[in-house]
C-alpha cells in the first residue's frame, strides 16, 4: 500500500467513525460480493421463485418416475433399475434445459434493464457480480431441481418399490446430476456476458442440450467424452452400481474443467463490458 492510499484509508475510517458507520472492507476483486449474493439469494428464497421451481421439477421428475414405479408386471430388481434409469438421466437432461431457459436472462436482463450499470456504479466488482449469480443460482437450482426431487424420489421408491435403493451410489448419481446442472448454468451465464439478447443464449444452450440427447449416437466417442453429454448414462450407471466403461470419469472431469473455463470466460468478458 502506498502512502497515498494509506492516507485515503485513514480518512475513510475517520469519516465512518464520525458517522458511526463501519465501512465495508473487501478485496477489490470481491467488492460487494456478500451484498450481491444476499440479493440474489433473496430473489430465490424471498419470492415465489423457489416454490414455483420446486413445483415444476417435482411434477416433472417425480411425476414421471412415480408413473414408472407404479408400472405393473416388472420384477422388483428390474423395476428399481427402470425407475432410477428414468429419474437420474431425466434430471440431467430436463434440468439442463430448464436451467438454460430459467437462467437466460440472468446477465442479459440486467444489461438490458440497466440495473447492471447501476450496480457497477457502486463499489462492486464485476467478478463479484458474476460469482454472486453463479453461487446463488447454483444453490437455487440444486435445492429446487435436484435435492428436493431426489429426496421425494427416495421416499417414493422406498414406498412403492419392494427392493431397497442403495443410498450411497444413488447420491453419487445425484452428484453427477448436480455437476451437469452446474455446467448448463455456467454455460448460460457465460453466454449472457457475450450476447446482448436472449435469443442466441437460449438457442445455443438448448441446442447444446438437444444435441447431446438426440444425436449422441452420431457423435465420435473422442468428442463425446470431452462433453457432459454422457453424464445421464454415467449418473444412472453409478447410482445402480452398474459396471461402466473404464473411461467414465473422463466426461465428469471434462465437465468440471469446462465449468471452470466458462466461469473464467464469463469473468473475462464481463470485465470488458461497456455500459
Amino acid at each position, binding site marked *: 500500500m502506498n502512502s497515498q492510499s494509506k492516507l485515503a484509508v485513514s*480518512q475513510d475510517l475517520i469519516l465512518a467513525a464520525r458517522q458511526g458507520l463501519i465501512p*465495508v472492507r473487501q478485496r477489490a476483486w470481491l467488492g460487494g460480493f456478500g451484498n450481491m449474493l444476499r440479493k440474489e439469494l433473496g430473489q430465490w428464497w424471498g419470492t415465489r421463485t423457489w416454490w414455483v421451481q420446486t413445483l415444476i421439477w417435482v411434477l416433472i421428475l417425480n411425476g414421471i418416475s412415480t408413473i414408472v414405479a407404479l408400472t405393473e408386471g416388472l420384477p422388483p430388481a428390474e423395476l428399481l433399475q427402470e425407475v432410477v434409469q428414468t429419474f437420474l438421466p431425466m434430471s440431467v437432461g430436463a434440468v439442463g434445459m430448464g436451467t438454460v431457459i430459467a437462467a437466460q436472462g440472468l446477465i442479459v436482463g440486467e444489461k438490458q434493464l440497466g440495473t447492471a450499470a447501476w450496480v457497477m456504479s457502486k*463499489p462492486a466488482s464485476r467478478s463479484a457480480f458474476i460469482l454472486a449469480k453463479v453461487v446463488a443460482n447454483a444453490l437455487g437450482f440444486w435445492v429446487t431441481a435436484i435435492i428436493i426431487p431426489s429426496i421425494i424420489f427416495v421416499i417414493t421408491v422406498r414406498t412403492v418399490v419392494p427392493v431397497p435403493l442403495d443410498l450411497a451410489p444413488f447420491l453419487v448419481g445425484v452428484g453427477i446430476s448436480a455437476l451437469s446442472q452446474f455446467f448448463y448454468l455456467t454455460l448460460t451465464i457465460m453466454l449472457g456476458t457475450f450476447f446482448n439478447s436472449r435469443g442466441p443464449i437460449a438457442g445455443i444452450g438448448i441446442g447444446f442440450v438437444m444435441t447431446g440427447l438426440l444425436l449422441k449416437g452420431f457423435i465420435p466417442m473422442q468428442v463425446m467424452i470431452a462433453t457432459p453429454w454422457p453424464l445421464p448414462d454415467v449418473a444412472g450407471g453409478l447410482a445402480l452400481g452398474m459396471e461402466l466403461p473404464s473411461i467414465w470419469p473422463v466426461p465428469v472431469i471434462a465437465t468440471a474443467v469446462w465449468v471452470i473455463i466458462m466461469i473464467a470466460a464469463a469473468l473475462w468478458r464481463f470485465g470488458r463490458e461497456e455500459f
Partner: protein
Amino acid sequence: MNTLNGNVIHTQELTKTYKGVNALQGLSLQVPKNSIFGFLGPNGAGKSTTIKMLLGLTRPTSGKAVLFGKDITQESLAVRRKVGYLAQDPRYYEHMTARQTLRYTARFFYSGPKDLIEARIEEMLDLVGLDDKADRPIKGFSGGERQRLGIAQAQVNYPDLLILDEPAAALDPMGRHDVLAVMEKLRKYTTIFYSTHILEDVQRVSDRVAILNHGRLVAEAPIQELLAGNGAGSVYNVTIKGDAARAQSRVEAQPWVHSMGAILKDGLTHWQVTVHDDEAAEDQLLLLILEDRALRVKSFGRKTYNLEEVFLTMVREESKK
C-alpha cells in the same frame, strides 16, 4: 479528502471512440472541491460518456482521468466508494421497495451497525419525500419518484462527489425546484458534477461550467466569467448625457477597443463598446469619457449575457469549425 491541487476531478486528454466515431475528444477538465460544476452540451455531445468513464462503466480509448488522486481505470472501486451517482434514466430492481433499494445501496458502503444504516436510509427517504412510499415496490413508481429515489441512493454513502446525469430532465417544475434546492443544500458537504441541458438551472446553482459539443470542450470557466463575455470580447454599456462626439473619438482610438456603436435616444447617448482587453477597459474607459468635463455618465457597466446566449453562440461557432 485526497485531491489533486484542490481538484476532485482531473481529466487529461480523455478520449472515447466507439467503432471509429469520436464520442469524446481530448477532454481536459478540472473540477474544484466543493463546487457545483455544470456540464453542458446538446444531446450526443459526450456528457454521459464522460460520466460513465469517470465511474469505470466504460473505458477511455486514450487519455487519463483522476478522481481524488486515484486513477479511474486502476483504482475504480476506491473511486466509487467516494462517489454518489444518479443516472440519466435511473433503473433499479423493480421487485424491491424504495427502502430495500436504499438498503442494498448502503450495504455496498457500510457493513454496520444495522440501526445506523437504517437511520441513514430513513433520513434519505425523508430528504426526498418518499417516506410514505418507502415500502412499496418500485415498479409502481412514477418518473419523478424514481428520480427522487435516485437522488436518495446517490447520497446514502455521504459521497465526497455527487455525479448527476441530467438530474432534472424528467421532472416537472416543482420537482426541478426540489432537486436544485437539494443540490444547493449539499454544496457545503460535497462536490457536485452534473450534466444538463436546462440552462436556467445551471445559471441558478452552478459555480463553474463546461460546455461540450461534438465530444469537444468548447469552454470551461466560472459561470460569472462566462456570463460576462461570450468569447468574442467583453462589451461595455455606457449612457452619457451631453455631446459625446469627442469622447467617442478618444475611445475609438484606443488599441484595446474592437468596435463601438452609438445611439442617440431621449437626449442621451448610448454606447456599446466591445473590447479585446478587459483590464485596460476597466482601467481606462471611464477615465477617457470623463476627460470631457461637460459630460455626465448616467450608467456604466459590463454587459452580462444569459447562459442561453453564451451556450448557443459557442455551440454554433464550434459547429461551424
